[in-house]
């Protein structure tokens, strides 16, 4: 008897929840009409009291660390903060406060070396800064996501005159990268017959490519996309051969927040807002990838 009663209650709760969800959907539809810019979160949700999300919602600000010098991902320009990472942060803010929530973000620059520290010292709530998830970092901070799979890729001259399709095609070609980087080690290992030109900066490599001294430049696709965006005379092969899962850093203790950000990521995957964020930023130089599966480790 008791068992039956309990399952009835669960069913009732589920039915009620379904009604609420449908009702919300209808409301939005009525209010916004058929606007295609409609997001997945137009109203502020109610968070459980005492949760990290409730605290942030109440404080009225989401403190986000991002890159200030990475074109297409995080850059502080004359028009404010821009890039894919910035868009992702805005979508998360909209999940907290509903539409217009992006205005509540307080951005600050997070250079690579300080990303763990600013989370540990509670200077930011989130780090969205081309931040690769790895085991060593997982000891120090929490990671939601990945929200993007970066990787080492190849940049060639516009029109790809040598028809480079991937790392194997670099054998027998002259290829530039930066001495001492993981990228150049991968190149020497994975394309052993490539003639490697080792320089000190990627912009020098870009100059070599521009002058036709080398066939290709290889390093993380995010860096290459930035170079392509700035100089506009190259193209990305868009066939990454290593995996760099980018995650959203949260404070290690804030597990509820990490879970919620993961939920929110899945929400913006489904709503198409993730793809829109890509298309309006990095999408100008690279095709829209499939959103990666969230890893709830």
């Amino acid at each position: 008897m008791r068992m039956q009663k309990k399952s009835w209650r669960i069913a009732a709760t589920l039915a009620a929840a379904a009604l609420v969800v449908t009702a919300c959907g209808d409301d939005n539809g009525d209010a916004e009409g058929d606007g295609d810019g409609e997001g997945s979160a137009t109203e502020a949700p109610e968070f459980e009291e005492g949760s990290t999300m409730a605290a942030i919602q109440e404080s009225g600000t989401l403190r986000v660390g991002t890159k200030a010098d990475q074109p297409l991902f995080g850059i502080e320009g004359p028009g404010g903060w821009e890039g894919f990472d910035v868009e992702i942060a805005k979508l998360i803010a909209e999940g907290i406060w509903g539409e217009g929530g992006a205005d509540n973000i307080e951005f600050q620059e997070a250079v690579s070396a300080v990303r763990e520290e600013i989370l540990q010292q509670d200077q930011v709530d989130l780090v969205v800064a081309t931040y690769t998830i790895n085991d060593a970092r997982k000891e120090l901070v929490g990671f939601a996501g990945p929200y993007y799979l970066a990787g080492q890729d190849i940049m060639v001259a516009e029109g790809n005159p040598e028809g480079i399709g991937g790392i194997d095609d670099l054998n027998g070609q002259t290829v530039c990268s930066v001495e001492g980087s993981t990228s150049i080690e991968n190149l020497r290992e994975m394309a052993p017959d490539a003639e490697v030109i080792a320089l000190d900066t990627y912009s020098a490599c870009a100059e070599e490519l521009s002058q036709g001294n080398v066939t290709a430049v290889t390093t993380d696709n995010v860096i290459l996309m930035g170079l392509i965006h700035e100089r506009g005379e190259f193209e990305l092969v868009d066939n990454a051969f290593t995996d760099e899962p980018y995650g959203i850093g949260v404070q290690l203790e804030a597990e509820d927040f990490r879970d919620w950000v993961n939920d929110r990521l899945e929400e913006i995957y489904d709503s198409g807002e993730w793809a829109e964020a890509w298309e309006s930023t990095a999408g100008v130089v690279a095709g829209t990838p499939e959103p990666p599966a969230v890893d709830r480790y």
Partner: protein
Amino acid sequence: MDRFAEILSGPHLDLLIVGTRVTLYMAVLSYLLAFVMGNVLAAARVSPIPVLQRAAMAYVSVFRNTPLIVLAFLFWYGGGRAGWPFGRLTTAIIVLGLYTGAYIAESLRSGINAVPPGQAEAARAIGLPFTGVVGTIVLPQAIRTVIPPLGNLWIANLKNSSVFLVIGIDELTRAGRRIGHALADYTSAFIVVALIYLALVYGSAQLIKLIERRLEIAR
């Protein structure tokens, strides 16, 4: 000690051998070019033709007053844009030769000034043309007095070849950087590289001393 054995074996040793070879190759060829340039420029400096004098002076001041690394970037990247036809290594050798050439010209000029004016006057008196006066009477004596500074310039030239790693030449210093990075031990890698440079320089200094002694007797 194990670390040094590691550096001096396998792929790291290959890098050092290739790097040393490239460094020596660059040093020798660029010095030959520098020597020719130096002689031509010094002759122009002491020639009776004002245009040649000025041109040589301008050349020397441009190449002596510009850092070598700037010249390397300028010729390789700037030149590349302007249709410079030479490859990477050839460009490095040419730039290094032109640079050291300016210094050799100045050394030779001081050597020429040290040749008593009576020598040139006598040569002219017996009817030698300017090229004959300079080429057969003055320069041979001048070169002898400047063997020690020319030796110093050879050493400087050899060491300056390391600058060209910035345009992607895989010479000895670059080999040191690669090994230092691969072993995460720059100190050991550069101790080895420094010892190789020392051996190259010390060896050539002995050779210079020998030449100096030979030519002294001839005087």
